[in-house]
């Protein structure tokens, strides 16, 4: 039964659409509803649903019998961008995004436990209206990194357990953005190097949609954990998830987008008055040459993470937990796009390493019911100059609550809710000029980003 169930589970979840940022950067930390209810504290005292495969592989050591759990976290992110000058707000159009997780553990011996997990620790989904002024940075972006992790946990003695997992990572990415005609070279007789903006084409005049899609990028990594129980009621855990570099092989497709401009008389293109600019652009043949369909290969590194936490149970039914998490976001310093025909593009991101602090509670208040709650705070990874429509990210406070219900001796349902409040943050909707680095002077408005998360996991012990 376990094998067939796992197979069905994987088939079911791969078809879903991950994910959206719910932690630092484009990290997602909600991979088990039980842990989610306690603000993501899973390292010092993993839950019994198998999610220790992700949160601390050592946590599966000593588990007896088998456990299968399936769950999903629904992320509904909302927010928008308010332009400084006009005061107009453009709202995000993110849909409710389901982020699946699935775990299987089986106690081979009282000391050795095997496990397998599927989770999506890095994902990004931002969808803006196609009329959004930031569409030249990106308006419909989707990045997903699915981790498949076979794991072993070993209980060295009653005090120390260790665990390790091997991660096979499957990544895909889709980036959509409009291209700005004003940045393109002007035709002769304009001097070489003259942009169309310098002969009058307005800033942010769209003329083409660039879509880069890449899938089946693969990478490998590891997840290592240790769990120490020095005395009854106290446990300390640590865990390290390695970085994974994903080199995507994708396609860049450019399609003409309407400029909305009808050329007046005496225009620099020499076209008769009343000619749509789109017609002139089409006749230039750029979509058959430099903007022809071509390879577009992004490269992104999923950063490594370190978590250390402690759990204390002053009474048997009640546990207080705290955890610190460090994410190596400085690895995300650039987003590189290698094109087959166009010049390669390097987008500066300059992310900084982040610290997150999580505090959770768990209370077996009544028979067959467990209440959970928590609060977490983490720093933003994006520096002030790279808060963009791609990921308007910042410092966040998150509040969680959860409930575990023992439906039967073997079947447990976990439910959780999480509210993310990100501090409103200034950002930009334009790219720096070619050859220059982004600066805060380009920031022209305020991003607001909040989210509601709903988690549900069903676990079965056998």
């Amino acid at each position, binding site marked *: 039964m376990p094998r067939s169930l796992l197979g069905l589970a994987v088939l079911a979840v791969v078809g879903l659409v991950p994910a959206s940022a719910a932690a630092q950067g484009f990290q997602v930390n909600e991979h088990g509803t039980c842990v989610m209810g306690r603000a993501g504290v899973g390292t010092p005292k993993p839950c019994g649903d198998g999610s220790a495969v992700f949160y601390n592989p050592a946590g599966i050591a000593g588990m007896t019998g088998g456990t299968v759990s399936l769950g999903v976290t629904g992320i509904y992110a909302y927010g928008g961008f308010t332009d*400084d000058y*006009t005061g107009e707000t453009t709202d995000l159009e993110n849909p409710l995004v389901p982020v699946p997780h699935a775990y299987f553990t089986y106690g081979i011996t009282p000391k050795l436990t095997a496990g397998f997990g599927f989770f999506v620790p890095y994902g990004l989904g931002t969808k803006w209206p196609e009329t959004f002024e930031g569409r030249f940075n990106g308006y419909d972006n989707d990045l997903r990194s699915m981790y498949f992790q076979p794991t072993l946990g070993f209980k060295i003695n009653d005090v120390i357990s260790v665990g390790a997992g091997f991660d096979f990572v499957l990544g895909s990415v889709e980036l959509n953005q409009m291209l700005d005609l004003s940045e393109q070279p002007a035709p002769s007789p304009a001097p070489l190097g003259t942009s169309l903006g310098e002969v009058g084409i307005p800033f942010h005049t769209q003329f083409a949609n660039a879509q880069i899609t890449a899938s089946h990028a693969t990478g490998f990594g590891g997840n290592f954990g240790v769990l120490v129980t020095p005395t009854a009621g106290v446990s300390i855990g640590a865990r390290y998830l390695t970085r994974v570099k994903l080199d995507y092989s994708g396609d860049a497709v450019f399609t003409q987008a309407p400029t909305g401009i009808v050329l007046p008389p005496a225009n*620099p293109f020499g076209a008769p008055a009343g000619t749509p600019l789109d017609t002139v652009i089409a006749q230039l043949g750029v979509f058959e040459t430099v903007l022809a369909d071509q390879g577009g290969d992004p490269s992104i590194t999923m950063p490594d993470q370190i978590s250390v936490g402690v759990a204390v149970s002053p009474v048997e039914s*009640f546990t207080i937990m705290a955890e610190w998490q460090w994410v190596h976001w400085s690895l995300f310093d650039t987003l590189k796009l290698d094109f087959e025909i166009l010049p390669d593009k390097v987008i500066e991101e300059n992310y900084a390493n982040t610290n997150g602090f999580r505090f959770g509670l768990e209370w077996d208040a009544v028979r067959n019911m467990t209440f959970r709650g928590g609060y977490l705070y983490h720093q933003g990874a994006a520096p002030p100059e790279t808060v963009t429509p791609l990921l308007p990210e910042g410092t966040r406070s998150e509040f969680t609550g959860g409930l575990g219900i023992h439906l039967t001796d073997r079947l447990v349902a976990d439910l959780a809710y999480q509210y993310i*409040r990100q501090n409103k943050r200034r950002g930009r909707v334009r790219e720096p*000029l070619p050859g220059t680095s982004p600066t805060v002077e380009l920031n022209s408005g305020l991003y607001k980003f909040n989210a509601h998360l709903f988690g549900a996991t069903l676990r079965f012990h056998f």
Partner: protein
Amino acid sequence: MIRRTSPIRLGWALVAVLPLVFAGCDDETVNEPTAVAPLFVRYASLGNSLTAGIQSGGINDSTQLEAYPVLLADAMATDFTVPLLLSPGCPPPYVNIFTQERLGGGAAPPCALREAPIPTRINNLGIPGAEVVELFNYFDPGLVPSETDAFKTFLLGGLTPIQVAAAIKPTFVSIAIGSNDLLGAALDEANAGDPDRVTPPATFAERYDAMLDSLDAIGSLEGGVLIGVQPLQLSTGASVPYFSPGAAWQQFEVAYDAQLDAAITAATGGQITTLNTLDVAPACTTVFVPFPVGGAALGTANALAGMVFDSLAQGIVWIPTPFTLACTDETVIIAEEWVNLVTAAAAYNAHIQQVANDRDWAYFDPAPLFTQLAGTPGAFRPFPAFDPTDPQHETQPFGFALSRDGIHWSTLLHEQIAAGIADAINDQYGTSLSP
């Protein structure tokens, strides 16, 4: 009895307190635009070459920043972006209208580029040559092609001023439009003053209202100032010097002939005492002569005189047939056409003022300022400074109120216009703008 705190209560209390310790409220804020009054936080100026900042037949980043909308925006302390053109300009302004020498000399390109990086938004939406309909429609079948059409793409990228205004959501606008609905006729080289090229007042009113309807549709306006068409005729009865009365040319001919007579007398030792290369026809008495027409006639007369003296230097006596400034209907503005222009201007202004009143907007009529200046010596010359020995020949050939092209305002007049508009705004809105 001492009651011990439950660890469970303590834990929940801890979680409740932690957000206060860590998070606080560290929201950043929108940097809203500022101005001396909320009314002016987003100001857009619509108009023609006067609004765009043309002076001396050219435009560049200097003349653009001397234009009245920029001065008004400075007084409003509001962000105001201009589509700046690199020096020497496009085209560069005249250094000397009579020699047609432009800034930068012959080596300068006929049209310099826009300044890079281009602005992310544009507040000065003036389009040289624009008639009222062109604020919202570049393709009206009645429009006559003009060399200023290139500015529609060069300054606003082919978008109409109203389309560009929609992007900046103006709270306040100034609109100075209508001069070209008259000047197109006045400057028509095929038939100066052609009544068919004057936008009929009823049509003007209809288009003006349509233009305002388009602005209203943006949905952001809180106020505005409408600016009347500048007068062609000064309160003294004289015209602006670009359109010299034919009678003035007749007076000029007398002086010009006297100069030539003196010169030929001196050159021939009194053997020849009369030289006439320019005749101003009797038909000129009641007409208005556009500067290019009169200038061309004078240029021909000068050339003839030069040939006479060149011939004398070679010992040849050659008496040419004088060139006649004929003042035919096609080349000059005859009296009926002039009346038509002045009447149309008055009708335009009546409508503009009425609209301003209906909207409770400010209205600025430039006529009183022109009247005041007409009484100031040197402001408007009664006749262009054709004489190269005239101290103002190169620098102020039409007077200090006008730039070297005789039509567009000088920097000084822009300042006075801006002050006048500010007064009108202050009267209407209780503000205290002081450009």
